[in-house]
Each structure stands twice: as C-alpha cells, then as structure tokens.
C-alpha cells in the first residue's frame, strides 16, 4: 500500500471526513500537531476509483466514512496527484466539526452520526411541552387541537368505551390487517364521507385505504402524487396546518401557496384564492380543508365552494381534501361533508384524506383513510393496488385497534346515533365558548374593534389576528399557550376562563405591537 500524506492546508475538507470516523478503544490516531498543521498518515487503497475513493488511516481500525467524503467540497492533495471528490450541495442537516476536536476524542467512540444537529421543535407540539413546563396556576393551553371538556380534561367518548368493551368481550384476534386496512372500516369510512347512496360508492369508484390518521393518509397521497405525477405541484392555503409542508417536503412533492387568509378582514381572501388557483400550472393538486379550516377557522360559503370548483375544473386541477374535522364544524357529520360531496357530484375526480382523531377522540390510535375518487371502478382498483404498494415499505399494514373502534361505532346504528349526539355535544361546547369569548371581548374592549370574526369562524380554532410578538405576550405575560401565528384552540378553552382570555387578548392586541 502506498502512503500518502495530506497537509493541513488541504485538510479543511478532510476535517469533515473525520466526523464520520468510528474510533475504537484500542485504536490510535496518529496525529502530530506541529505549528498548527497536522499530518495525517493515510493508506491509499490500490483498487479505488475516484468516486469511491477511501482514505484508510494508519491504524487498521481507523477508516473514513465513505458517505461523508462525498460532502467534501474541495480537492485533496494526496501524494503526487490530486483526487477530486464529487461536489455535493451542502446538506442542511449535517453539522461539521473542527479538526482539533477530533484529536481529543481519539480514544473515545465517535458515532457515525456525530454530525446530526438538533431538529427544531415542532411548533404545535412544542407548545404543549412548554405548557407542561409552566408552573403558573393561571396557565391555559390553547395550543394543540385536542378536545377538552369544560373541566379541561381529555375526553374519551362513551361510544368508544362501549366499543372497546365489546371488542374485549368478543376476544378478537390481533392478526395483521391487509395492507389496505380493515375492510369493515374502509367501507364505513367512505360511506360516512360520501353518503352510502352516493354514486361514487354505488359505482365502486372510490379507492379507500386505511391510513395512520390524517398525517399518514396525506403522506400516502403525497407518495402517490410523487410517483404518478412527477413534477406536479400541490397548492396549499396560506396559512395551513404546519405539518402539510413537512409531509410534501419529505415526500418530495413541490408545493406553493394560494392566498387564503386576509388579515385586514380576518376573513377569506376569496379573490386572491381564485386568482392564485387560476394562475397555477394546469394539472396542479389543490389542497382544500373540507371544513373547519386549520388554523383560521374560516371556511368558504357554499357559493364560494361552487366557484372554487369551477376554477379547478377550468384549469384541470385535481382537488385534494383534508377532512380532519367532519362533525366538528357544524355538529352535523353530513353537513360537514358538504364541500366534498359538492365536488363529487360534479363528476370530478378527487383525493380525500380523513382523520378520526378529533371527531371520535381517537387521537392516539392513528386512524384515518385516504380516498381516491376515480372515473371508473377499474381505475379505483388500480389506484388502490398502488397505494398498497406505497404503504407496504412504510409500515406494512395499518394498526388494528382504532379501525375496529370506528367500524364498530359507525357500523352499529345504536352506537352511531350515540356518537352523533356526543359530537353535537362537543361541537356545541365549542360554539358556546365562542359566544362567551365574544361577549367577554365586546364587553371589556372599549376600542370598538369588531370581534365578530370569533363567531363567524368555525371549528376548533380561531385565528385571532394576533401577530407573533403579541402571541408571545399572551404566553409570557398571561401564561396563555398558543401557536405563534395567532391561532387559539377553542377546544382547550372553558367557559370559566373566557373572561381571563379576553383580558389577555385585549392587552396583547392593544398594548403590544
């Protein structure tokens, strides 16, 4: 083996190579520090090509990471010649370490993942974590969209308890579900969404695959888009649920935003929305919130939905609904599916992701579905087979428990009716809280500001119009936890706390810029 010596001048890129080293207790790193330069004694493997060039260090157990070297941006002079390494775009996830530190850790294990930086905290879940850490007794968690009772406790629906008890009594087995999920669940979920007598169901034109709640169902759809519509964009509302972008990014689907929220009116920027959908390249996917828009709570009216459908048809776009709150918006499951049914009735093909996290309180069980409405039963069969093919290398088959609960509740007329009643109760509590908050704000705020958007917005969330600094004030001064975009989750608000919250909002709005 020939020995090649690298000088430190050229070793700056090499320092990045060293971050990938795996050092073992009994190995030694031969580094001599001399006048800020160090020499590294390298063994050059004779059989290498330039793209797979490796540096193996003097001690048999020290070797450079093959993959880290690909991040080298420079040329490395080794011996007489020079080896050039493939240039690679800077990887935003990798944090490079300085050379001198490595010499100190010579005797210690260095992990292959030394360069891994800390991921930023999730903006939504991070709020709950901060809330937990707060010891102030006045604290209020209006972060995550999880339903709470008036006593601000999590709520397990009675129908869910009944279903679970039934399941235990029956002593059913825990065998794998098919990749597409529990058949009984897939049937009832599609019927719940479209209506059992809907032509799309009768004609078997819907490909339904059980997914891991809304997130998992969206991810399956994103993977389908990436594979079958490479380059096609997804248009998402500005703003939208924070995780939408992550899902499309990780699925390598490009996205862009359409105007949605108008801060001036604290309402819908309808003209902007239509214009942006029109301007997008033909054949884009348009992500729409079926009802109870997250985070704004602002939904189009039925007439506006018609116009949105018009422009989507005109541009040959494909509508992609995220239905996370069916039943939570108005209290009626059917009414809340209105937008989806409107589009389906026009004969349009669409994608619909569903979640049972909120409306059945099954947050942690991860139960939802992706539905693809096609023009023919044959296309639906094929699409379903491809969704399965995408799911198998992700998690093989979906979890059974939540699916059985939903199938039992929705499939049993008594339980289904009980569920409808519980949903009306939950949606009703939120409506009451909205009213009380509005009343408190109007009574306390002498500025004449119009707070009626609180009553007009729908579902779990309200977009208060508070900016980041003001939202910070809510947290820092008032111990009210919310997301920085000004969104509050009314599901986490009790009637008892409405006045306190009104004080906080008024203070933040008027006294903080």
């Amino acid at each position, binding site marked *: 083996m020939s020995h090649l010596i690298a000088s430190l001048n050229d070793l700056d890129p090499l320092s990045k190579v060293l971050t990938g080293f*795996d050092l*073992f207790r009994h190995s030694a790193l031969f580094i001599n520090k001399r006048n800020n330069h160090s020499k590294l004694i390298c063994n050059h493997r004779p059989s290498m090509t330039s793209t*797979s060039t490796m540096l193996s260090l003097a001690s*048999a*157990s*020290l*070797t450079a*990471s*093959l*993959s880290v070297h*690909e991040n080298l941006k420079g040329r490395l002079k080794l011996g007489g010649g020079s080896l050039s390494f493939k240039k690679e775009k800077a*990887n935003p996830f990798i944090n490079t370490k300085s050379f001198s530190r490595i010499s100190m850790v010579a005797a210690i*294990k260095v*992990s*292959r*993942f*030394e360069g*891994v*930086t*800390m*991921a930023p905290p*999730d903006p939504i879940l991070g709020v709950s974590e901060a809330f937990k850490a707060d010891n102030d007794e006045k604290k209020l968690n209006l972060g995550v969209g999880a339903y709470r009772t008036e006593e601000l406790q*999590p709520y*397990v629906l009675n129908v869910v308890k009944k279903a*679970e*008890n039934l399941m*235990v009594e029956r*002593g059913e087995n*825990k065998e*794998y579900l098919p*990749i597409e999920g529990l058949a009984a669940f897939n049937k009832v979920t599609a019927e719940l969404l479209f209506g059992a007598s809907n032509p799309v169901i009768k004609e078997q034109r819907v490909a339904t695959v059980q*997914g*891991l*709640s809304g*997130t998992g169902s969206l991810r399956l759809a994103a993977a389908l888009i990436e594979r*079958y519509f490479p380059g096609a964009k997804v248009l998402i509302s500005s703003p939208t649920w924070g*995780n939408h972008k992550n899902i499309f990014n*990780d699925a390598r689907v490009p996205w862009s935003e359409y105007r949605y929220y108008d801060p001036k009116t604290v309402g819908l920027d309808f003209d902007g929305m239509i214009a942006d959908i029109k301007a997008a390249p*033909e054949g884009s996917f348009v992500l729409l919130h079926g009802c109870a828009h997250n985070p704004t709570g602002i939904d189009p009216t039925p007439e506006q939905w018609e116009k949105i459908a018009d422009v989507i048809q005109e541009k*040959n776009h494909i509508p992609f609904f995220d239905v996370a709150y069916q039943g939570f918006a108005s209290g009626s499951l059917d009414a809340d599916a209105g937008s989806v049914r409107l589009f389906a009735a026009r004969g349009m*093909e669409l994608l619909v992701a569903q979640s049972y996290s909120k409306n059945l309180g099954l947050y*942690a*069980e*991860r139960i939802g579905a992706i539905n693809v409405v*096609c023009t*023919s039963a044959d*296309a*639906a069969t*094929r*699409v379903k*087979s*491809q969704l399965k*093919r995408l799911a*198998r*290398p*992700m998690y*093989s088959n*979906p*979890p059974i*428990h939540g699916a059985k609960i939903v199938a039992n509740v929705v499939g049993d007329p008594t339980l289904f009716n009980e569920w409808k009643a519980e949903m009306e109760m939950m949606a009703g509590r939120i409506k009451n809280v909205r009213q009380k908050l509005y009343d408190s704000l109007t009574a306390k705020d002498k500025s004449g500001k119009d707070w009626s958007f609180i009553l007009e917005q729908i579902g779990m969330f309200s977009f208060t119009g508070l900016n980041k600094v003001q939202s910070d004030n809510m947290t820092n001064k008032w111990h009210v936890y919310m997301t920085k975009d000004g969104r509050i989750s009314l599901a986490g608000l009790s009637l008892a706390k409405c006045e306190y919250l009104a004080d906080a909002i008024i203070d933040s709005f008027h006294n903080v810029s």
Partner: protein
Amino acid sequence: MSTSTKALNRLGWWDRVSPASKDPITGVTEAFLADTNPHKINLGVGAYRDDEGKPVVLQCVRNAEAKIAGCDFINVGRESNATAVGSKLVEESVKLAYGKDANVVKEGTLAGLQALSGTGACRLFAEFQRRFHPESPIYFPDPTWPNHPNIWRDAQVPVRTFQYYHPVSKGLNFAALMDDIKNAPDASFFLLHPCAHNPTGVDPTAEQWREISYQFKVKSHFPFFDVAYQGFASGDLDMDAQAIRIFLEDGHLIGCAQSFAKNMGLYGHRVGCLSVLCADAKQAVAVKSQLQQIARAMYSNPPIHGLLLVSTILSDPETKALWVKEVKVMANRIQQMRSTLRESLEKLASPLNWEHITKQVGMFCFSGLTADQVDRLVREFHIYLTRDGRMSMAGVTTSNVSYLANAIHEVTRYN
C-alpha cells in the same frame, strides 16, 4: 399541455396507473383465503398459529388488555400521556435487546423511538440514513425479507447484497459472507438478522458472530439489526439477542429495529422500537429529535393501544414472566413441528436430505423447493407458501403435518 390534459380529463387522472404486482408474501395469504379446499394449509406469512391452526392471542396480552380497555382512568391518560407511554416502551424494549444491565441502557446513550413495528422502525432508519449519509447504500443478506429492499428503495437508499445462504448445504455460506464484508467499501451500512433469519432460518454461530463483529470493526461498518423474532429462535429471549450483545461488547454503536408483532402476537397493533446507539447523551437527544421529525411527516406518532399493551406487559414482573413462558411455548411447538416434519419425510423414504428442516431456526424453513415445486404444492395440494420455497413452520400442526409431508414428498420424489 392543454390538449393532452383535456384528453386526460376524459380518461380520468388515474389512467396512467397500472396495477401493482401483488406483494409476494401477503399475496399468498390472499390466495389462501380465497381457496375453499378443506385441506388447505397456509405456510405463507410468518404469523404464529397454535396446534389447531388458529391465531393466538397470548394470555399476557389478554391480561394487559383487560387492564386498559374501556377504563376511564387509563383512557383519560391515554392522549396526554402518549409521550410517557412511548418512552416507557422504548425503555423496556431496549432492555430486551441490549440486556437490562447494558451500559447504553443505564447511561441513556441511545436514541430510541417507538415505531410502527419492524417495518416502521426500518423505514425510519432508512430515511435517517439517507438524510445524514446521502448516497450511502445498504447491504442486505442474500436472501432477505422481500420488503427490506422496498423499504430502503422508497427511502431512496441504493441497495446491495452480501452472500449469506448456501443453496447446496442449505446453511450459511460463511466464507463468502466474510469475503463480502471485507470487500465492501469501508464504513458501509449492513442489515443483519440477529436470530431466526428470514427467510432461511440459517443463523451464524456465536463464534461466527464474533468473527463478523471483529471484521466489522476492522472495516468500520455500521451494523443495523432487524430483530423481528427475538424468542423464536431458541425460546430464550436473551440467548436470541446474543449477536447483539457480542457487537455491544466489541464497542460497536449499532442500530436496532425491534418488532413485537410475532413474539407478543401483536401483529395488527404495529408496535416496535427503533434505537440508535450514540456516542453520548447529547448526541442521542439530537438523533432522536431528527427521527421524531421524520416520523412526524409520515404518521406523527404510532398508535397508542399497542404501546400500552407492550409497556403494561413488560413493566409488570408477573405479566412479563408469563410472557416469557408463552414465548417458550410458541418456540417449542415450532421446534416440535420441525422434528415431526423431518421424521415424516424420512419415513416416506424421500430421496432428499431433510436435515435442514431441524437445523434451521425460528419460524421459517427454507425448504429448497423450486418455484415449480411450490406451484405444484399450491395447485395440487392447496398448500400455500412463497415461491422461494420458504415455509412458515408456524402453520404446521399435528393434524396437517402428514398431509404436508406427503405433498412435499410427491412433488420432490422424482426430481
């Protein structure tokens, strides 16, 4: 674009979608379910069956279930304590894999996250590997579980193989395996089955594992263990983790995907754990945060019911002891069936050597049957298995073993 998209509109958006080929494993189950023949046997998917051929829910699971079902106290905690439950699961899982007294467990220098069974744990790791070592390939044993290459490919990691199975001896091709480890570029990622290799049932001995571990050190390879059958190889959970413990002793910082599908019979609940050993606790926090971010964009968090079941079982000494017993029962029954099948074939005076049936370990037997012979078994005898000749011994019972032996004998006697 507009004329073709108008044409598209008439045909529909999804016209370009061709039907996906059936998954080789679940496709077998589908075919089996559709078959009405009374003698049918399913030797396809690796799911345990009792001696009546029925799926089993372990008693320890039923006990745990009764504790958590429909009960207000636990339910109320369910949503808000999801993080705590997840952490508990990770805590107990890593003890199983690494040993409860392992330093990495005690010092917390590992990043652990609950995952969607083994598949989900593998996928998380594959995405993580791609993110932090872009363009690094992964090496699988040849053969391996067919879903492994799908998982890593969908994560955009190139796949390679190393030699493993010796079709003539129906055992391990150790020399070739070591060669491939030596010849791979330094610091490559390798996936290893620590016990009960799927599909062959062929495992290295402890001595061979030590040599593999040593060579991994020399080459600085990254060992990723897919632990799907802990308990099923020998019946002893610690013994089945021996390979992992050897690597740990040798100072490797490994990665590990664990599944509770088989050994706890929680197939449909999708409970597993991904752990990555790190240099220190700080790095462990960073790595975990990245894994959580990957999971967040895929499914947010795994379903809690399964996590609750597993952590309830593992953290209660009595229930855990019951579980350990039940795992042994399952492993013993399979070993029994292996012996019986081999004896039956030998009694039929089969011209072939069937030693491998009892030498191979775990749920699967790599029978050595050809695809044509498998097709005959399916068509003529209604015996379902994958075309690579892999038989899930869990599907063999005292009442069907003679039928099975006769069928195998029939399709192999003249070859």
